[in-house]
């Protein structure tokens, strides 16, 4: 019996119903047996792995609200609403991969996800079934772990070279600074092409990176255009890329599509770090793109959204985060264009994919100098720690509690990042876990005094970056996490009217009064302070046991029964 036959038998057995324990081991493996390819072209896509070289737990959000036209449509579906929309049976491996439902129990059953050694095995398995496939990395690859931070992404570049990544675009990569990015391109990116049509020099508008690459895949000329995160100098410190300008650059993108077509591309793909809402709008306005392989917003969307525009349709995908998924897009292409497609967002279940020995050795080599330090057990968590969700996660609550306790402030702010891994109840919180939630190049903790009026203005500003009804004004992060102060939020209101009922210890926040605020990740140049991981580690060591944190989430209004909010969330 060949491996394929074995897995087909397995799949049949699964359909017939096997005991749960057997299913946990074999059910994911069946996902990796692909049907015969539709067409000739295959694009493999992963994005936002955030430097997670080892397998992790990652809980998907229970709150992911879409406003106006985006309400209740992918990617703004969570939990059961998401499963229903995509026809996924609850209690299965796929349901666990795509949703937060029964997270702890399912995580114990199916084990960790991702990890580059397991990911490498999956890439090899898929490549064997899809000869001539291209492997695309959507960015946010060099940041998110201690080893990436301490090697300035060198560990990730080595892993991506070994994985056989063909092309990439970027976002957090830029937070190592423009010079470091250019150095990486020159020295250790190997044959990986770094593509970004929307990054130009601020002075003369000259291109900084190659905009697109034209490759022949099984006889079909295909153009891949890169789209870096348009708001890098706004969402992250501008001084890292002071001489470059970003933006969505629709007009230039349209010209690039035309140029690629003129040079003979039968299909045009955008490898995008726009975020899914931005990509959906862009797909309706820019013509001639067959598929947008998207990232940034970390949405694990099982099927593409088909967007109509003036000249045809564009598929829009988003492939999750933290190394949890490999997307496989098969395209049937003729000279006249794309005539059919097949898409799979494969979860990477580490227990179902033996580690690739070469990749495992590479990871061990890069981790060796830091392994002992990263393994330090700082405290034991009694509850589940996770980050994702529009307003707050338990992991962020621990960070907020730590900031308040260690720095003696009244109010704490923690940025609404969407990366950061999960910790299961009853397990130790290690230095590595803390770094997975905090490893950035501007980790400083700062204490400031702000007036009530300024706090309100700040929260309105951040909230508008999340809930502006026009996706082009959304930056793709979540709401700032807040400790100490309580508030109410109406995501559907206009800017300036979303935030209300701000109270501290039961007393209303006063516009003219000043409050002591502790926060981290300042974007201003010249900021300094203790790295946030030091503050959190101090708190954890002192606490020894972390009880399930009391989540400070705002009282929501205006949203009603929203499919982007899980019941009880």
């Amino acid at each position: 019996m060949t491996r394929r036959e074995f897995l087909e038998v397995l799949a049949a057995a699964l359909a017939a119903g096997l005991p749960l324990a057997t299913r946990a081991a074999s059910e994911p493996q069946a996902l990796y047996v692909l049907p015969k390819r539709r067409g000739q072209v295959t694009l493999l896509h992963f994005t936002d792995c955030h430097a997670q070289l080892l397998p992790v737990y990652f809980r998907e959000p229970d709150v992911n609200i879409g406003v106006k036209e985006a309400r209740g449509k992918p990617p703004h579906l969570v939990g059961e609403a998401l499963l229903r929309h995509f026809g996924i049976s609850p209690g299965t491996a796929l349901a666990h991969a795509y949703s937060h439902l029964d997270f702890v129990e399912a995580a114990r059953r199916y084990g960790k996800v991702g990890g580059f050694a397991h990911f490498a095995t999956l890439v090899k398995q898929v490549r064997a079934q899809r000869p001539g496939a291209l492997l695309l990395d959507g960015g946010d690859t060099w940041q998110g772990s201690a080893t990436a931070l301490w090697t300035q992404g060198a560990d990730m570049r080595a892993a991506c070279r070994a994985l056989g990544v063909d092309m990439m675009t970027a976002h957090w990569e830029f937070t190592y600074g423009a010079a470091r990015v250019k150095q990486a391109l020159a020295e250790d990116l190997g044959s990986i092409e770094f593509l970004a049509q929307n990054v130009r020099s601020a002075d003369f508008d000259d291109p900084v990176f190659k905009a697109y690459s034209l490759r022949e895949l099984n006889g079909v000329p295909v153009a891949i255009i890169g789209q870096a995160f348009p708001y890098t100098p706004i969402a992250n410190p501008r001084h890292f890329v002071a001489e470059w300008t970003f933006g969505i650059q629709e007009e230039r993108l349209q010209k690039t599509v035309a140029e690629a077509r003129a040079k003979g591309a039968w299909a045009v793909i955008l490898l995008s770090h726009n975020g899914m809402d931005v990509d959906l709008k862009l797909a309706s306005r820019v013509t001639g793109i067959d598929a947008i392989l998207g990232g940034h917003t970390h949405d694990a969307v099982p099927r593409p959204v088909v967007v109509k525009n003036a000249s045809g349709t564009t598929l829009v995908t988003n492939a999750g985060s933290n190394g949890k998924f490999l997307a496989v897009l098969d395209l049937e292409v003729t000279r006249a264009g794309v005539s059919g497609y097949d898409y799979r967002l494969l979860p990477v279940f580490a227990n179902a994919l033996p580690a690739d020995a070469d990749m495992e050795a590479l990871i061990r080599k890069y981790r060796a100098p830091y392994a002992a330090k990263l393994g330090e057990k700082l405290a034991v968590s009694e509850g589940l720690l996770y980050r994702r969700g529009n307003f707050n996660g338990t992991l962020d609550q621990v960070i907020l509690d730590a900031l308040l306790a260690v720095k003696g402030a009244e109010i704490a702010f923690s940025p609404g990042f969407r990366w950061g891994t999960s910790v299961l109840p009853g397990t130790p919180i290690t230095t590595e876990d803390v770094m997975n939630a905090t490893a950035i190049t501007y980790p400083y903790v700062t204490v400031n005094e702000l007036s009530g009026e300024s706090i309100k203005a700040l929260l309105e500003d951040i909230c508008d970056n999340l809930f502006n009804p026009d996706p082009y004004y959304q930056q793709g992060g979540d709401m700032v996490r807040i400790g100490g102060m309580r508030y109410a939020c109406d995501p559907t209101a206009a800017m300036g009217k979303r935030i209300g009922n701000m109270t501290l210890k039961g007393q209303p926040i006063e516009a003219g009064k000043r409050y002591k605020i502790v926060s981290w990740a300042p974007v201003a140049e010249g900021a300094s302070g203790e790295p946030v991981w030091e503050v959190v580690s101090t708190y954890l060591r002192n606490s020894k046991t972390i009880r399930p944190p009391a989540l400070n989430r705002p009282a929501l209004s205006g949203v009603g029964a929203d499919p982007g909010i899980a019941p009880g969330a």
Partner: protein
Amino acid sequence: MKRSRRRFLEASAGTAAWGAAAALGLIAVMPAGAARNAAGFDSKAAAEAVKHLGATDALESKDIIITAPDIAENGAVVPIAVTSKLPNTQSISIIAEKNPFPLAATFDFGSGAEGYASVRLKMGQTSNVRAIVKADGKFYTAVKEVKVTVGGCG
């Protein structure tokens, strides 16, 4: 970076954003505070500035394209370009509605000149940026919002 182009422009650096085009003799420039329409440039409200331009009845036009960031990367230097496809474009004015002095620039064009102007504006807060174009003796307008945000939270 093309050295020669950089040197050429550095030579006229004092003229800032509109220096290059003006140096090439394509347009006549009326910087803020110039003698003509001083009242317009001194106006502290957008409506008043529009009135001083004589453009209160300006028609919305799709032939005016404002190229500006949706979200400013740096509020201190927001690049704004206006292209007018209207025949016989005579002038382009740029107004940042919420700036303390909203009328930022007026460009007068000689006959046959291409209707294009670009500036870098300082903007302290989110604002509509309005272009007012005079073409064939009539006024036309277009508007685009530019958001100025505190940043952070990627």
